[in-house]
């Protein structure tokens, strides 16, 4: 019983950790090359979830099967990310981190309120089937969807790893992240790299939003903005700008939130993420994982 509970809590932590990891990696990638914290990132989660709902419900003509709707939504949000960066961030990219950060807060308000104006504040749900949890090895219980979320999380991590290590784009991203002027001198079109990173970052955010919506329905237009703090906690814990750190941080935060809920008090789920965030900033601002990108 005690062991069952413990294992089950670990599994719940891994499930939520997967959602956070996808979001945290996206955020940290964009920080890596742009060097500012994007407060509008939460809106990419929200847009991912809402666009999937609408595409699946046939808002734009024909209704798509859910996985297709999710993929289309993720691509659209990726493009939205590029558009947002071109309109709002590129023109002021030379003015340092603070103006960019403030702008991102403004962009976050614009995106959120646009969505609210469009769809209203009422709660929405993804059309996913409701399932009972099944026993796995007689130890843990989880639904096929929860298992799916973990799988998608792991695959995404793997894909990001391959992207960074094995592709030319990944190498350019790492170079730009390490030293932008040097990368430029070496002949890398850093503006292009930044745009491509924006696409990947926003798309990862959207994917994270879709995974969130699969697990936690119904949701409202503030969902991404509110979840941003959890993603921040994971990102900072891993050392901002470091994708592998963000993955580790996300797992840690997911586990902490679920262990706190089960063994301390369920009323403070996100407060555990806050606590870790504050602790990291006080004790080890560079995060648990040192080193570069």
């Amino acid at each position, binding site marked *: 019983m005690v062991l069952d509970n413990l294992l089950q809590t670990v599994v719940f932590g891994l499930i939520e950790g997967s959602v956070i990891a996808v979001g945290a990696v996206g955020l940290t990638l964009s920080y890596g090359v742009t060097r500012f914290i994007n407060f509008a990132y939460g809106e990419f989660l929200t847009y991912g979830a809402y666009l999937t709902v609408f595409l699946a419900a046939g808002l734009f003509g024909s209704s798509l099967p859910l996985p297709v709707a999710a993929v289309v939504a993720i691509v659209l949000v990726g493009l939205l990310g590029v558009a947002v960066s071109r309109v709002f961030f590129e023109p002021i990219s030379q003015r340092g981190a603070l103006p960019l950060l*403030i702008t991102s807060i403004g962009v976050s*308000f614009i995106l959120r309120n646009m969505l609210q104006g469009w769809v209203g504040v009422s*709660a929405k*749900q993804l059309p996913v089937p409701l399932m009972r949890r099944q026993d796995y090895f007689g130890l843990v219980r989880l639904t096929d969807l929860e298992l799916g979320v973990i799988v998608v999380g792991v695959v995404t991590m793997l894909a990001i790893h391959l992207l960074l290590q094995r592709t030319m784009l990944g190498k350019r991203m790492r170079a730009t992240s390490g030293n932008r002027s040097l990368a430029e001198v070496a002949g890398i079109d850093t503006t292009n790299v930044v745009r491509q990173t924006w696409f990947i970052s926003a798309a990862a955010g959207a994917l994270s939003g879709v995974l969130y919506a699969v*697990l936690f*329905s*119904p949701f409202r237009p503030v969902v991404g903005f509110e*979840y941003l703090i959890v993603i921040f906690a994971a990102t900072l814990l891993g050392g901002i700008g470091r994708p592998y750190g963000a993955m580790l941080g996300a797992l840690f935060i997911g586990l902490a939130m679920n262990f706190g809920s089960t063994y301390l008090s369920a009323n403070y*789920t996100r407060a555990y993420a806050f606590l870790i965030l504050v602790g990291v900033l006080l004790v080890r601002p560079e995060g648990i994982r040192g080193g570069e990108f």
Partner: protein
Amino acid sequence: MSHNRRRFLKRTGGLAAVTMLAGCTGGDGDGNQDTTDEGETTESETTEADSGGDDSTTTESSGGGGEAINIGVPLPFSGDYAWVGANVLPVVNMIAEEINGQGGIDGRNVNVVQADTEASPDAAVSAVNRLVNIENVQGVIGPTSITMSAVIDTLVENEVPVVTPTAGTTSLDTRGGDYVFRTVSSDSLGGRAIARAARDQQYNSIQDYERMALMVGNKEVFQSFKEPVRSSFEEFGGTVTTAMDVRTGKASYTSEVQQMMDSDPEITVLIMSAEDSVKITEAGFQAGYEGNWFATQDQTNQDFLSQSENQVTNGMLGLNAATYQAAEEAGRLEEFFQRITEYAGWDEGSKTFATNTYDAMNVMGLALKQVAADGDDLIGANIASAIPTVAKPPEETVTGYTQGAEAIDGGTDVDYEGLVGPINFDENGDIVAPFSIKKAQDGTWTEAARLPPEAL
């Protein structure tokens, strides 16, 4: 180093300023509401100006007149509970127009002033302060349970009579009767009804439940139900396995549901918002919970069922205010539904709190009329003491403002009989009304049993 530190401080200062700015923008929602409020004030001023015009017309005909009588409606008009204001205000306006169409109160028109409480105690305090100190309201229809405790002192100290159609909170159980009345059952009665209906098969059509768990949102509006359900269920011979306070608005309730299931109940009473209840019942389904659920008025509506899946809600029990048979048989209920759907452009008349509001505003109007007919000043103390009088038997039974006003003009005392019940206020300003126990089946609520006040 110190230079760096200064720069750091400068930046953090900047950040703080940004956050504050963000706060302001965040408050822009409020800002908007302020604007709306101002808009409303302007509107009410215009209405006052209009009614001033009306007054002069009235002055010509009746020789009386004066400034309008303001009736405040402090309710949530924005946010998650905006539906409450949206359901109540049209009914108030409709009766106000009826009163004015009858020549107003002693030649003075009734003017409705809305104030947005945003379902938040802070906003409610400033909304009610505005109503009391700036709009000088003579009476109030509202507020909800969520904000009642925050504003009741202001209202009572300023001798503003209140007839609320929306506040079932148990905190009013012993505080009403002088200035505060309500045309909605107290949660103590509602809680007792849940306990009774769960305990007795004849009221739920399923079984005599013995083991009950409670999951109660950590807000006053929900907490108000907790004690009545728990103590009544134990009084009726049941066992409460756990009474959990649950944080509202969370993304997931997996841990809470697990804790509930560990206590092994046969039925779980959900005293939460509809949205959180969807999450909890679905979490229960995923975790293989086999007991039943019992919902309060907040979830016993079509909206809740359409957000949930039938396999989760089938067999679920819910509490609702029952229709008052006398009003139904006399066709008054249907008549009201038709009138309000036409007036407000609603698709259905039976919206939550609509009938309660009809009764509240009629009682308020008749009390004003009675005070004017007695030749007394239209001040709070007089109006408040007239409120229970116009609804007390055995005087002439009336069922609407126009009918009552004519009787009062004819020198007869009246007993208002409403749509939700006979509306006889007890010493605490409360009414009794029957309850209906609903059962969800295939996405609709059907009545499982009716619970008369005597059964409680």
